[in-house]
């Protein structure tokens, strides 16, 4: 018994050491590839000559290459900013440009909002629309329901809810198997 508790102590210390080692490796706050930065503000560049290009409906090559370098490329299954694949719309509300991309879906042929470009003090900042914002903005347009929670639960994450229901079903079946005597059914 005593040797067992000693082994447990050694195991706990070993796991604590691994934990401290791993925590040392976690990137510092403000890492450009961490989710918070990747999905909200991507990067900012000088606006020289790019405003006219955006107004004309063409994404500058520098923006395209930098978004692809951040991981929004074909290899990670993101639609890229190819010519003819996107539409640029002026967003008067946020005073910027929305970049809408054709995703290639069969049933939704309309382009979806992916990036947002904003100009401030001679610099362009590229934003990526994050998922909750997109769902809240698009839920009535896409699913015909006003409630973003309902569409998120049963439409966008339909598999999750289906297997949650399966869990409840199998739980009920297990309770029947454990508690019920034969002949009651």
């Amino acid at each position: 018994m005593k040797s067992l508790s000693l082994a447990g102590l050694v195991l706990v210390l070993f796991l604590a050491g691994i934990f401290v080692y791993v925590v040392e490796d976690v990137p510092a706050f403000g890492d450009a590839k961490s989710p918070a930065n990747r999905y909200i503000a991507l990067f900012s560049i000088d606006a020289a000559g790019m405003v006219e290009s955006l107004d004309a409906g063409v994404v500058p090559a520098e923006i395209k290459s930098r978004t692809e370098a951040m991981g929004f490329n074909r290899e990670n299954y993101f639609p890229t900013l190819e010519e003819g694949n996107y539409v640029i719309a002026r967003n008067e509300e946020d005073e910027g440009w929305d970049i809408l991309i054709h995703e290639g879906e069969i049933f939704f042929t309309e382009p979806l909002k992916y990036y947002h470009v904003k100009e401030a003090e001679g610099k362009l900042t590229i934003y990526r629309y994050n998922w909750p914002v997109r769902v809240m903005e698009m839920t009535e347009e896409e699913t015909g329901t006003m409630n973003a929670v309902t569409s998120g639960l049963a439409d966008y994450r339909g598999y999750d809810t289906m297997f949650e229901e399966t869990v409840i079903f199998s739980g009920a079946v297990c309770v029947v198997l454990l508690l019920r005597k034969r002949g009651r059914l």
Partner: protein
Amino acid sequence: MSHGKEAEKKATGPGSTAGPAKKEYKRDVIIETTAKAMVPLILLFALYVMVGTEATGGGFQGGTILAAGYVLYVTAFGTVKGRERMPESWNTFFKSFGLYLYCGAGFLAIIFSLGAAQFLNYSAVWPLARIVGIAVTRGYLLAFMVSVGIGTTVMAAFVSQFFDLAWKDEDEEKEKEKSEVVE
């Protein structure tokens, strides 16, 4: 009103003192009247929560409230009379029917997209989408198939668990009485 008094007489009268006789279900006027008034309201509220997409809640919550209404009925009127209202075979049917309804909404999409991998992509149900539009189709399937399916399964699961526990207690009491009689 009258049966409550009779039950009280049976329980406390001189006739019921003759040993461990057959134990009858004890009725209560107040509980029965309250249950009669409350159960329809609870079921209506459950439907309001369960069906549709604009209201608060959803399938899980609506199914739980449905089960709560039924459990209140059974608590007031006893397991035998409660089981008559919804037999065990119905309960077993409902338990799997809800899941089939949900998966059926997914398989409708597969059928109407002619076998393409569109499971649970509700917009692929084109016969409805041509009439009311893609977005409203998704809303309808969500409100009337998915939510109702979830609610049915949850309700049946809760009710079956409640009955399993109630029957287990009844069986144990019966066995106790039997052993007392033998002694």
